[in-house]
């Protein structure tokens, strides 16, 4: 517990600030950008379970995200379901079901082979979203639904911001537990030394498969939240560029750090939306930023922060504590003498 003390307090402080931001006068546009960060952050953290924890790089993540989005859109428009719990659970379930199928195909291969297969599968889902108009609405996607009230609260942008923040917290907390569970330890082992894991009697395939499903589950949930946020689902929700963006979020923030991808999501979303209004060359600028980070901070931003900032913060805290303790002792000792 003590090991996580500093981190936990940093996280709690961050959460408190985020929760207070809208009431502190965060402009509405930033409320919506942050909402987007929370939602994509869930998906990116889930991808990190695969990339960082298991060592498997998947390009099919957007397809699960998109399946979640379409599930919500379809349930809202065709079946008039107005309960978040039902639609979001269905979104997660659908994404997991698709992943159950894809995993059987993709996990036959390793490394680059896996990467290529997931890429192809993502393209298939995207093509399907485009062509299966009766279900998906084709390239126009599905529109015409609204966010239902959130329990007793109105579905305002600020309330949805808080809802997405809560969803992110719960999801990331669950993912944190998963990554720190015995199962998570096995995933780490598989990433580092698959040969040893086999020799230890672990069925690598089934662990990777399970990780693949879990990642898809959270991606589907995030996709569902995203559909509500946008009030539409479209092929862009499951297009390959989104898979790539999610991978960039993971790498940017720090693969294997779980919280890093949240930071990655924030950076990607804020930079792309603010740069794009400054110059048309923004993709180039972003590209340079990514390359710089990958070159000079291969562990990602949070990886660097944990390695550089956290220890110094820790020692600083410890020093202060020690000083306080010794100060307290000093103030006690005269009393003793007296």
């Amino acid at each position, binding site marked *: 517990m003590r090991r996580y003390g500093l981190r936990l307090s940093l996280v709690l402080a961050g959460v408190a600030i985020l929760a207070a931001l809208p009431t502190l006068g965060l*402009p*509405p*546009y*930033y409320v*919506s*950008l942050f909402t*987007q960060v929370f939602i994509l952050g869930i998906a990116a953290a889930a991808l990190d379970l695969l990339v960082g924890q298991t060592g498997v790089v998947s390009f099919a993540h957007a397809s699960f995200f998109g399946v979640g989005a379409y599930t919500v859109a379809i349930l809202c428009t065709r079946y008039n379901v107005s309960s978040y719990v039902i639609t979001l659970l269905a979104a997660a379930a659908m994404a997991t079901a698709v992943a159950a199928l894809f995993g059987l195909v993709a996990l036959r291969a390793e490394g680059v082979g896996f990467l290529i297969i997931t890429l192809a599968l993502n393209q298939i889902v995207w*093509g399907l979203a*485009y*062509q299966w*108009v009766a279900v998906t609405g*084709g*390239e*126009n*996607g599905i*529109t*015409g639904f*609204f966010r239902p009230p959130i329990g007793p609260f109105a579905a305002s942008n600020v309330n949805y911001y808080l809802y997405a923040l809560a969803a992110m917290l719960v999801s990331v907390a669950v993912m944190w537990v998963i990554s720190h569970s015995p199962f998570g330890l096995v995933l780490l082992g598989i990433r580092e030394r698959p040969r040893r894991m086999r020799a230890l009697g672990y069925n690598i395939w089934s662990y990777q498969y399970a990780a693949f499903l879990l990642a898809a589950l959270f991606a589907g949930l995030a996709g569902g939240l995203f559909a509500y946020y*946008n*009030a*539409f689902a*479209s*092929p*862009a*929700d499951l297009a390959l*560029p989104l898979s790539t963006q999610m991978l960039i979020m993971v790498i940017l923030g720090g693969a294997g750090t779980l919280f890093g991808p949240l930071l990655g999501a*924030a*950076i990607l979303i*804020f*930079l792309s*939306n*603010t*740069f*794009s*209004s400054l110059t*048309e060359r*923004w*993709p180039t600028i972003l590209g340079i*930023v990514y390359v*710089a*980070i990958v070159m*000079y*901070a291969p562990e990602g*931003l949070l990886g*660097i*922060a944990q390695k*550089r900032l956290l220890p110094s913060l820790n020692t600083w805290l410890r020093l202060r504590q020690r000083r306080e303790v010794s100060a307290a002792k000093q103030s006690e000792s005269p009393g003793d003498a007296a």
Partner: protein
Amino acid sequence: MRKGKWIALLLAAMLLLTACSTAGKPAGTQTPGQTVAPPTPFKLGLLIPLTGVFAAPGKYMQEGVQLLLQESDNKFAGRPVEVVTADSQGNPQAALTQARKLVEQDKVDAIIGPLSAAEGNALVQYLDGQQMPAVYPIVSSDDLTQRTIPKYIVRTGWTSSQTTMPFGEYAYKTLGYKKVATISYDFSFGWESVGGFVQTFQEAGGKVVKELWPPLNETNYQPYLSQIPKDVDAVFVSFSGSAAIQFVQQYKQFGLGKPLIAQGNTVDESTLQATGPSAVGVVTPLHYSAALDNPANKKFVADYEKAFGHGPAYYAEGSYVGAMVLKKALESLNGKSDDHAALVKAMKAVNLTDAPRGPVKMDEYGNPIQNVYIRKVEDVGGKLQNTVIYTYPNVSQFWSYDPKTFLAHPVFSRSYPTVK
């Protein structure tokens, strides 16, 4: 490793900077407030793809608006116009985020854009919810102004089938084609273009012997061309951008020897020179041609070439006219834009007589009634152009049908109308 830390810090600093600079903006624009003297600027949000696959036509849209502003001395109804450009990336999600920025952050008074049907569709609910007046100069998906009509969106462009319905009749009656095959984009723009054509071509007595739909990212059309029966009189297609260039070139190389007719985008001026000699002879319908012979267009083309060093395309004229409609509406309201419903109503009441494309007026559904030109690609002194060979005047999105009967049918799709 130490460098990594600096980059991280730099990034954090950039984030903070951008957040601060933009967060400070709205307060700044609000301060002038109620004081009388100078007219408040009209804030125009230009939401167009500046990056991604649609970046090239997006540029034409930007230039079209820019030219109108130049000609208007940068003023609408006496109010200086302040343009805020946002990149929709050709992606519906990005378009929506940027629309939010324009509306909630930049507090624009109206929006012109976007380009693709998917983007346009994604914005409808948001724009209506925000009661934000918007001009759609390019988005052509039929149903946008048909079965359910958005309250705050005015389309100054066209519907995909608005041009091909007259063209189906023209192909049968004037060009004399009896048997036609179609090849087109496999999504709504393609379906609607082909659907309109098939509808009137069949009604006139023609026969559509084959419909082919290559998938979206196809770059090799040979397998589709080889499926065309040898006894057709012509082939009707609908593509745009680089797909159009590739298709028209490959069609010529394939050597079917049958005339190529198409939806207007396929040989739009934005890609025509790149397509090259293979395009010569292609006959298409559209509500505009840069070669249109009227004084307004002559001036438009000359000014455009002078301003940007190249000629306009329909994307440019479309956005030019879109901005013009907005301008006229504001003038009719004496520059007042606070009542958004009134502004939209005024836009729908605009009646243009001197647009480059000819007369434009809105139908009650919010789509223009305008001329549809039948154009033929010709090589004039080494430069390709869409020479107008026939004009269908004042064509509505319903062509010659009664709107009620038209709307009782489903939207044109892969399966409607059925090929007989």
